[in-house]
């Protein structure tokens, strides 16, 4: 059947490496431990299956022996053949049952192991710091959790379990054959088996390299096609159609050529195996003839000779399977290596073993000579000191890249600082429970990230203690209720395609409701800059005021209305605090704030530059959420 995963994998780089790494295998096998009885059952059933297969030629032998017997009467012959047929029927029924149960068992084992590993990887990733997520593209992490884990399933079901089956088969064939005629077995083992093994190994090596080439060529074709489709404007503007078509045609022909190579190996191998089978049959027949013509080499019956024909026929599949294992193992080793690398990665932002209690959280925040960089020594914050007293409201202002977002990141302890200290209620931020800390903070980000699911789920974020009532109250309080209730499904409306159906302003209100539902003691608000229609703008301004009321608040302000309401304004410029004071004080000063104010807060003639956006058209792909956070852009 068609393998759905096949084509997708072609896009990925060929992972080449060892097919066996004892350290990795040992670690992988540990995941089998919880299911060891199932494994034992599966192995036992495989033993049953292979023996029921191997008994088949034996039945035929007995039938032939009975039919050719001179000593038995017709009635006796009928009787014996009848018994054998019944025995045979029993054999195929047992095989049927064993095959059925073992297939299910092996799958259950494989799926459970995959479930365990995947859950573990995902769970571990939840502990990783934001720095880790900054450095690892989402796509790469997704591959770890999905495809890499999937290839371990192959390792379990094909690598471990069927290896037993193949070994049982090969061993079994030899044992049965030896039991009936040692000499004939030896002749066959010497005359035919080496060729089978040799031919198979040749085929596997050749076809493996051919398939690798095929995959590489296909990846090239697909990459080229993909690039041409996305860059079709360029192709057409620069009149490149013919040239690119020729190139594509060449790529396709190369790909076809590699397939021809693969086809050649197939076309040689399979007929070759048949010839070897026939040679073996010829050997058996000649052996029999010589024997019956008086050579005292054996006393094998005609039935035995025929059974040998059957056993020889069973030789090929397991040998081919075993040769196949190489690929599976290689992929599994590469995947497990990548997975273990993630699992072995320690948590960067560690929680203290004995956190100092945050009971009676007040929300006093103090930065003392803080130096911070996202990487190396590209300082984003330089010697920043400030204090936010409980209940006070502070606004941070500054141009893009001044370091405002970093301050937020540090207060939430998404990152650890390089120099200086951050104190929360007088305690070093590294000495308190980070989860406890974050629970006390309500964070509203500039780009509102919505999860798939309904509105209610996006406000509650899975917190069961937040009742439907509380969700509604929160929404009501921040003026979100009105638009939510207008939606066809109300609070149950699905937030489609990353919130494509909600306007920027509505998403903003939704995120206010989200923060409020958690009733934090500290509010951190990164105001959105985007243009919002006047009506919603009024709602937002009102909501911001309500949110800040009675809460220690840190705001990255973009609205004049917000700035007017804070107790203190801190002006950041290129990572340093340049000015501090109230709105009026700073305006009077005529410094950076004055200019920022003119630029950002005072609309020139009521007109504002709109942020760069695509011309209005039908939304095709929902925009992916931005994973770079402000600061990275300008470094």
């Amino acid at each position, binding site marked *: *059947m068609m393998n759905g995963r096949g084509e997708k994998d072609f896009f990925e780089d060929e992972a080449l490496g060892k097919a066996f790494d004892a350290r990795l295998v040992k670690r992988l096998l540990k995941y089998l431990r919880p299911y060891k009885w199932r494994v034992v059952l599966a192995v036992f059933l495989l033993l049953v299956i292979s023996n029921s297969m191997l008994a088949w030629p034996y039945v035929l032998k007995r039938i032939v022996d009975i039919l050719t017997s001179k000593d038995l009467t017709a009635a006796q012959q009928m009787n014996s053949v009848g018994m054998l047929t019944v025995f045979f029927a029993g054999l195929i029924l047992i095989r049927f049952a064993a095959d059925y149960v073992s297939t299910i068992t092996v799958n*259950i084992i494989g799926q459970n192991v995959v479930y365990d590993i995947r859950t573990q990887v995902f769970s571990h990733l*939840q502990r990783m710091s934001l720095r880790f*997520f900054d450095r690892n593209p989402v796509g790469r992490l997704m591959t770890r959790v*999905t495809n890499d884990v999937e290839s371990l399933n192959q390792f379990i079901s094909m690598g471990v379990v069927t290896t037993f089956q193949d070994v049982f088969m090969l061993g079994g064939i030899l044992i049965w054959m030896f039991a009936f005629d040692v000499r004939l077995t030896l002749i066959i083992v010497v005359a035919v088996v080496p060729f089978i093994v040799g031919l198979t190994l040749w085929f596997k090596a050749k076809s493996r390299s051919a398939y690798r080439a095929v995959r590489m060529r296909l990846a090239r074709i697909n990459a080229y096609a993909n690039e041409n489709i996305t860059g079709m404007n360029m192709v057409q503007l620069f009149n490149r159609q013919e040239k690119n078509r020729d190139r594509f045609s060449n790529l396709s022909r190369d790909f076809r050529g590699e397939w021809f190579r693969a086809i050649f190996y197939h076309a040689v191998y399979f007929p*070759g195996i048949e010839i070897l089978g026939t040679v073996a049959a010829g050997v058996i027949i000649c052996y029999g003839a010589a024997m019956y013509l008086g050579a005292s080499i054996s006393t094998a019956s*005609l039935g035995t000779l025929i059974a040998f024909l059957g056993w020889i026929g069973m030789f090929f599949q397991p040998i081919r399977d075993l040769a196949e294992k190489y690929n599976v193992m290689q992929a599994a080793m590469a995947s497990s290596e990548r997975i273990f690398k993630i699992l072995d990665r320690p948590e960067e932002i560690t929680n203290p073993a004995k956190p100092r209690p945050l009971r009676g959280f007040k929300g006093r925040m103090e930065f003392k000579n803080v130096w911070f960089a996202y990487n190396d020594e590209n300082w984003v914050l330089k010697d920043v000191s400030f204090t936010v007293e409980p209940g006070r409201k502070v606004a941070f202002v500054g141009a893009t890249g001044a370091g405002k977002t970093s301050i937020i990141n540090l207060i939430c302890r998404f990152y650890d600082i390089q120099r200086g200290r951050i104190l929360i209620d007088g305690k070093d931020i590294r000495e308190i429970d980070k989860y406890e800390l974050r629970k006390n903070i309500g964070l509203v980000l500039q780009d509102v990230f919505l999860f798939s699911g309904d509105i209610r789920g996006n406000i509650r*974020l899975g917190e069961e203690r937040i009742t439907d009532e509380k969700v509604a109250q929160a929404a009501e309080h921040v003026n979100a209720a009105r638009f939510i209730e207008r939606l066809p499904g109300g609070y149950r409306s699905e937030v489609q395609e990353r919130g494509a159906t909600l306007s920027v302003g509505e998403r903003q209100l939704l995120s206010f409701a989200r923060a409020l539902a958690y009733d934090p003691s500290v509010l951190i608000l990164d105001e959105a800059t985007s243009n919002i229609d006047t009506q919603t703008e009024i709602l937002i301004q009102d909501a911001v005021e309500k949110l800040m009321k009675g809460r220690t608040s840190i705001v990255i302000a973009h609205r004049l209305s917000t700035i007017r309401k804070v107790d203190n304004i801190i002006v950041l410029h290129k990572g340093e605090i340049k000015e501090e004071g109230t709105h009026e004080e700073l305006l009077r000063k005529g410094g950076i704030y004055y200019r920022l104010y003119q630029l950002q807060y005072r609309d020139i003639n009521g007109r504002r530059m709109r942020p760069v956006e695509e011309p209005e058209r039908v939304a095709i792909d929902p925009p992916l959420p931005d994973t770079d956070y402000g600061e990275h852009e300008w470094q």
Partner: protein
Amino acid sequence: MLKNLRTLRKYFRRYRRGMLAGVLFLLFCNACEVAIPPVIGMAVNSLRNLQAGGQLQGLKGVVDLTGYAPLQGIVFLVLAVIFVQLTRAVFSFLQRTFIVRISRRIECDLRVDYFAHLQKLPPSYYDNVKTGDLMARCTNDLLAVRMALGPCLMLIFNTLFISAGALIVMLVVKPDLALYVMIPLMVLPALTGLFGGPIRKRFQKIQEQFGDINIACQENFSGIRVIKAFVREEHERKKFRALNREYAIKNIALAKVRALFRPLLFLIVGIAFAVVYWMGSVKVIAGVMNIGELIMFEMYVGLLIFPMVALGWVVVLLQQADASMGRIKSVLEQSPTIFDRAEAEPLGDVAGEIESRNLTFTYPGCERPALAGVNLRIAAGSTVAIVGPAGSGKSTFVKLIARLYEVGENRLFIDGKDVTKVRLKDLRAAVGFVPQETFLFSDSIAANIKYGAPDADEEAVRRAADVSQISADVEQLREGYAQILGERGISLSGGQKQRVAIARAVILDAPILILDDALSSVDTHTEERILERLRDVMKRRTSIIISHRLSSIQYADNIVVIEDGRITEQGTHAELMKGGGFYAETYKRQQLEDSLLDL
């Protein structure tokens, strides 16, 4: 039925002879396969006779072996079997090579045709489809179609020839046994067909669940900041575990069907063998059949298993292929909307005068026009700057000049010629276009620069790179202009990419140059240098520059402000500054911004 696959007839016709030869080879190959069991049967009979001290035994009415010396006869039979097998091997090799190769050839032809057709479709088509969908058609769908061309075709004939051959021999030898044996064998294709549906459905469910897991991961990793801020890690874990559990359950559901399917096939095959063993033995005991014939029947059953199973499989594959071909066809049947009319004339030498007359344009599927009644004359050889808020229609205007979207007749003229009536190729060759979103190909820098002028020499490439101020950057690279860009090479910064894109347009030496906000990621200083060099190069050529940074376009001969699809201001820098409209406001604002940066 299979209506879509009939489209492939024209491809088949190209390889008719090869296909015919392939099928003929397959026939010979199958004939050999069918011939082997009787020969083995004879050998068994002869052995039986030797064992009993009797004579060799041929096949009644076919081969008479009575004249042979015993050993000689056996050797003759063994050699005969090996000879037949060798012949079969040769034909098997040939038929595979012919049929499968042709299927690959057709696949290749179809892929190239698909690609060539995509090149004819205009941007408006691409605005409304996802790249992934177009890609899926030339990957997964093409794969399914290829399966129908190669393996399916081979299997159909294989089944036909083998079952016909085996059945005939069996019917000749023992008609009643032949019929009894065929009963269980006939169940096999039905069984495969029966299980094909559920297996595919369950498999699809697994794929969907896998997709859900993918999406969940993506969402989680992209929204990790929110998750951490609200301490939702535990909840996310729970959610993921549920998804993951569901995935395991769906996999096991598939395993359950498969676990039944394969053993069931074996069971039925086993029944066919049991029929041979029991009924054959009865006949042997009754003396109406010999051991050799029994063995022959046994071998035929073995020979028939695969073709019978394959028959059911073929039906499933053909249905899939037909659906896939339908999807491919839906793209191939898209008619290109922008193409040379029959009366399209060459553009000839271009002076570079551009004129729009009451130009109105609405993007397909949109209600509001992007441009409404734009009248603009751009004198040949002049430099025009277009400014205005984002989304006001600036880009649309220049895209229409290159006829990326279709305008009506008598709306847009180059040198007085209607753009819709000149040869598309000439029109595009006359325009050096630097788009807003830089798109470079994963090829060398040199290849990217000479994308529209493949015959350009190194010197020309360097000159273009010089003008666009990218040459110094390139010379710092170890590989220089041979450096590969993109996934398998290095990635350039946004500004560097834009400069390469400018070089790509400059090298064309076209009479019209369009910079569609093409300097947004370049710093002010470099931008000014580029524009300065361009002024040099573009003497006596027409340039249209869309920019958000007004300081760099002050010198333009004419500055046009477009707001909401209409021209609202027009004039030189000095004139517009006096006007106090959008231009003057924005200019002042940007000066303020600059002063802040200098702090």
